[in-house]
């Protein structure tokens, strides 16, 4: 047991050291990924706005014309405030998924912490998130939703989401390196996951045993948190959000450690 602990300690120290030593490289890789994205596409940053807007329109038609859904705030802004962070989450993961296998020439030829690839995928998606956030601000102005001091809590929610996303991104990219099936499995899982989160409808409408299972999903308190501080001007519900925070950082730690210990096998197995 003391041995396990000391190994854990030295691993954590190594991880921290590497992150500091290579932070410039992370910046360079992020810059590369951003450059590539906006070089190869005509719309550039427009895509960051286009996807959540399109989804908001689709779900607004469904939930206001086909069937009415009472959400407390106008439905379009309810949906957009959910789709925006969800998009950040899901696009981070889908970029991260192929980030190691897509850079195989680097993984097998040069040594640097490989965490940089999935982390860079998350950072690049964060840029898109910030760009699309301007649309949310515009919608808040349009629907005359005032902000309260609760908005100061926004960075905390974002931080928890980033921690959770990086943790999952590390595990996914690693899994995809070893087993290429993960890619196909992911596209199914992420769709199911979206409807298991309160992205386009309030999840508390689901009752019974299913609700108990759904409450384990840390993305729901995170997304509800965004709505609370932005649309309702209140702090997120304490217990679910605290639980999500703890879980997110546990996942991040597991992801970092597992990644760090498996790293040596990457070049052999890619």
């Amino acid at each position: 047991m003391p041995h396990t602990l000391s190994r854990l300690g030295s691993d954590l120290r190594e991880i921290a050291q590497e992150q500091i030593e290579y932070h410039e490289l992370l910046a360079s890789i992020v810059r590369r990924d951003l450059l590539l994205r906006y070089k190869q596409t005509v719309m550039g940053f427009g895509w960051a706005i286009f996807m959540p807007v399109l989804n908001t329109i689709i779900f607004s038609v469904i939930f206001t014309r086909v069937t009415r859904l009472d959400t407390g705030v106008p439905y379009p802004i309810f949906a957009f405030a959910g789709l925006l962070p969800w998009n950040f989450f899901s696009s981070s993961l889908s970029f991260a998924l192929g980030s190691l296998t897509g850079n195989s020439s680097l993984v097998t030829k040069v040594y640097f912490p490989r965490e940089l690839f999935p982390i860079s995928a998350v950072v690049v998606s964060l840029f898109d998130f910030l760009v699309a956030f301007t649309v949310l601000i515009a919608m808040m102005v349009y629907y005359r939703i005032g902000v309260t001091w609760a908005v100061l809590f926004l960075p905390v929610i974002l931080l928890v989401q980033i921690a959770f996303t990086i943790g999952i991104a590390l595990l996914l990219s690693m899994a995809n390196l070893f087993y290429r099936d993960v890619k196909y499995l992911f596209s199914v899982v992420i769709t199911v996951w979206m409807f298991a989160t309160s992205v386009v409808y309030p999840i508390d409408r689901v009752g019974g045993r299913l609700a108990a299972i759904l409450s384990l999903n840390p993305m729901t308190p995170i997304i509800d948190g965004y709505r609370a501080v932005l649309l309702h001007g209140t702090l997120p519900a304490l217990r679910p959000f605290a639980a999500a925070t703890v879980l997110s950082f546990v996942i991040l730690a597991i992801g970092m450690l597992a990644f760090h210990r498996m790293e040596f096998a990457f070049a052999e197995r890619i």
Partner: protein
Amino acid sequence: MFEHVWKKFRRGEYDDSLRDVIPALTKRMLRRARPRTDELNEAQGDFWAVRDVSFSVCPGEVLGIIGPNGAGKSTILKLLTKILKPTRGRSEVRGRVGALIEVAAGFHGDLTGRENAFLQGAIMGMKRAEIARQMDAIIEFAGLGDFMDTQVKRYSSGMQARLGFAIAAHLDPDVLIIDEVLSVGDMAFQERCMERMKQFKARGVAMVFVSHNLQQVSMLCERAIFVQNAVSAHGPVQDVIAAYLGSATTRHTNVTGSPIDVLEARLTDASGAPVTTVAPGTPLRLGVDYVAREPTTDFHFGFVLYRSTDNGVVYDGGVQASEVGLSTVSAGDRFHLDFEFRPHLARGQYHVECHVFHNPSQSYLGRLAPAGVFGIAETRTYQGVADIELSCTSAARPDAESQRVVPASGW
């Protein structure tokens, strides 16, 4: 530092889809859980790619690693750069490592040369400010002045390699690891690279250099190791190169069952004693035995001398069969020729090929290579092939002062 490093690889394919792994996992669970070992499981196709290899390199020293393809050279470099982890043993590098394992590995085709230079530099551990400061020197070194803002996918492979090496050449590493990268680029560029590596060496950078170009290895390294998964030879570079060249894995062509077989050859000095290393110009004799299997006429005995380190032809000639009274041979004839020659050559390793060549059909009737192997030892040349018996005298010129040309006025 490399201490008794072993690396296990497995032949064949890994299970890399879940479909394969689920049966494999259940099989493993049904059997008793076997602890993971560092022992070899030959039934599963394990083998040692690197077997008990040790070496160390001091600052300012260049270690050459030579060996045939698949001998584990690149694996050793990957173990050094921490890309792979040794199965047993320990590998340690102190200081900043620059790796030239594949110079264009980090390039992305859609970025321009300049953007890639920043990225590649960062991957190699340079700070952004450092790269920006060196950018002009990098462009100059690569000779890509007008192309730095062109996407790298439009570059020729030589241009990519040049840019890659130029970035690496402006690193400031403590340890530099170089794998077979100088084979790209034109002559002038290769020259510049060799020059740069000598500068690194003078600056006290420890280098490990892997190459099939033995000429470059012998020029750059003092010490070398010859690996065939395990270390086959280590020591001063000339000895190791000689061991590599003498090993059975290097080209041995002996066409047998041909119309005239070159049976065997013996290299001796003028007195008949076998030789290994001689001084330039020492008279040597190569005695060769032939046997004719078919009646043959109109052919010649070829004698080709190669420099072994780069297979460069030093001499290619021979004698017509008629000149030595063998214009026609019949089946079963055995005969012996003594070739005498003086190798006026610079230091290095050389080998001789003997063949029999049919003039009308322009084809080999029999061939033996290497028929003889020898080294030349001397200390006067830096590089080159021939010993031209250079001499130099000096004489005082008491009238030098008066002979100086004075420019005419009016210029």
